[in-house]
């Protein structure tokens, strides 16, 4: 029985001002509708243009569950194409990344396509003469995603025509990208090191909410970060604090630390923790880096860039970035109870290698399938995914520091332990779930 399809009211009723119905996490029909509506009406992160530096370079990924290719066209523009042959549906590429040369060629019947997706050639083409082929879907080639935006190297796409344009959708939240890019003395990032892929048996939104959940680290991570501090205390006096301990220790900072660090929310479900300081504020200086930044930007501007230590910036629906350590996490939905987490790392072009070394250490200590911090979190997500099947209470609470006068879709700065950003995400969730449900779909 269909409970939510063609029932906008039922979808709206899943979200109340300060609580959320469990079906947003566990119901397969809701998940399917998320793929059809939410992930098609929002600007979803595809990849970074440094992954495809040369004409013909491509990178295969998904938007929601839709297989796409991000490709560098011959004119150097970045295109996003649906990854299927218009003929029989064959996936054009199966390697995650590569170079297509001047054109893509389907391995099944050798139809070929320019790197903007347009049909180049079909063997024995005269077989299509006088068949009306020109009017077919197939004649259009590999279908492009029409709405693509490259923001300082970060490529986003929107599958449907509905919904706001890129600038309107992200607005001031783009400042977190700016800060990450500006941390390179030449204002340039490159994907580097390799991506860590971590499978989670939970809904993708649990991961997104966790990014601005500042009341869990001192509890859930006591086992990892707390133990790290205990073990470190036994080191002989005078031993230099290792980079790894600098990374682990702040996770178990007291509640006051997280309250004071602040949360900023933006319209359309975006927001970030760490307005004033964050767990990334007190890392040791990397030799030579500050001098390079001063040379590039002048002292005042360099201090301004490096003084911004935003913790986690969430871009609705499923991207989180960490500017101060050049790392992003993409929460790829696979099913209501299955999420693939990709953690990507970046090199600040023209900055000392030690920054990338720290970024990679952070990534493997915190985001790898072997990470003890990861184990702490996954345990909580998976317990929730099971616990939500309790019928006696079907609601998840997001009420912390809620005020009834709270307005949706505004920019605000507030106490770092609020759950306002979670409420902000769910306001956007309803908006983009229902935007194309009223028959206005493109």
């Amino acid at each position, binding site marked *: 029985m269909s409970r939510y399809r063609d029932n906008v009211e039922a979808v709206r009723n899943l979200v109340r001002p300060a609580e959320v119905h469990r079906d947003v996490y566990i119901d397969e029909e809701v998940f399917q509708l998320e793929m059809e509506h939410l992930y098609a009406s929002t600007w979803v992160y595809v990849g970074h243009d440094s992954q495809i530096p040369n004409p013909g370079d491509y990178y295969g990924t998904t938007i929601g569950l839709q297989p796409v290719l991000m490709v560098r066209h011959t004119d150097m523009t970045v295109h996003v194409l649906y990854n299927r042959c218009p003929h029989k549906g064959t996936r054009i590429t199966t390697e995650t990344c590569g170079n297509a040369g001047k054109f893509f060629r389907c391995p099944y019947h050798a139809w070929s396509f320019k790197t903007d997706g347009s049909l180049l050639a079909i063997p024995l083409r005269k077989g299509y003469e006088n068949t009306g082929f020109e009017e077919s879907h197939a004649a259009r080639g590999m279908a492009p995603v029409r709405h693509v935006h490259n923001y300082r190297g970060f490529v986003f796409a929107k599958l449907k025509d509905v919904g706001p344009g890129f600038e309107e959708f992200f607005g001031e939240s783009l400042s977190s990208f700016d800060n990450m890019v500006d941390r390179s003395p030449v204002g340039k990032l490159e994907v580097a090191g*390799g991506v860590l892929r971590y499978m989670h048996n939970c809904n993708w939104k649990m991961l997104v909410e966790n990014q601005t959940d500042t009341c869990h680290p001192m509890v859930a991570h006591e*086992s990892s970060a707390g*133990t790290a501090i205990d*073990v470190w205390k036994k080191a002989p006096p005078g031993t230099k604090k290792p980079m*790894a301990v600098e990374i682990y220790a702040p996770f178990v900072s007291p509640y006051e630390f997280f309250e004071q660090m602040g949360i900023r929310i933006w319209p359309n479900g975006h927001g970030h923790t760490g307005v004033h300081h964050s767990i990334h504020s007190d890392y040791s200086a990397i030799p030579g880096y500050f001098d390079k930044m001063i040379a590039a930007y002048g002292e005042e501007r360099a201090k301004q860039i490096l003084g911004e230590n935003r913790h986690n910036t969430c871009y609705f629906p499923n991207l989180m970035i960490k500017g101060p350590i050049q790392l992003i996490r993409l929460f790829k939905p696979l099913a209501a109870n299955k999420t693939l987490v990709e953690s990507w790392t970046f090199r600040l072009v023209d900055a000392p290698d030690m920054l990338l070394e720290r970024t990679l250490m952070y990534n493997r200590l915190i985001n790898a399938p072997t990470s003890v911090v990861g184990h702490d979190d*996954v345990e909580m997500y998976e317990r929730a995914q099971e616990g939500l099947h309790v019928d006696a209470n079907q609601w998840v609470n997001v009420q912390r520091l809620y005020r009834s006068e709270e307005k949706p879709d505004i920019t605000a700065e507030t106490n770092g332990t609020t759950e306002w950003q979670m409420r902000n995400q769910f306001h956007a969730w309803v908006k983009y779930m229902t935007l194309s449900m009223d028959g206005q779909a493109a």
Partner: protein
Amino acid sequence: MSLPTDQQLIDFVIREARLLDQHRFDEWLDLFAEDGIYWMPLEWGQTDARLTASLMREDKLLLTIRVERLKGNRTFSQKPKSRCHHVLQTPQVDKRDEAANEYVTWTPMHYVETRYDDQQLYAAWATHTLTVIDGKLKIRLKRVDLVNSEAAFGNIQLFM
């Protein structure tokens, strides 16, 4: 022992796996030299550990944190505890450099990790770089190359 025989190298590698299977983690840690490293590369044939990501790259301090965490009362991801099981091929002695006090073995293996009803099977090659310190063999580097190192894994909570 100043110059280990091949059989002593082989016995060492097999005993190391047994200590893990029996959750004798403190004894296992003692097998590492003070500057010993446990490394699980991310890439096939990876050579660089510094500017290329790894699944794990840990010195004795970080390994000690893991071992202590496994004992913790608030280590919720270990309630109930994971268990593991190694099946090793006979380790092959690839290198004996007595002058440099360095011995390298290569061991194909299957590794099983379980928790609750879940059981995961991994296939890997373990490369041990061993050395003799105060008459005892110690691990300078244990490198574990998973056959499918770039795959999307769930939790790997113990040691391969």
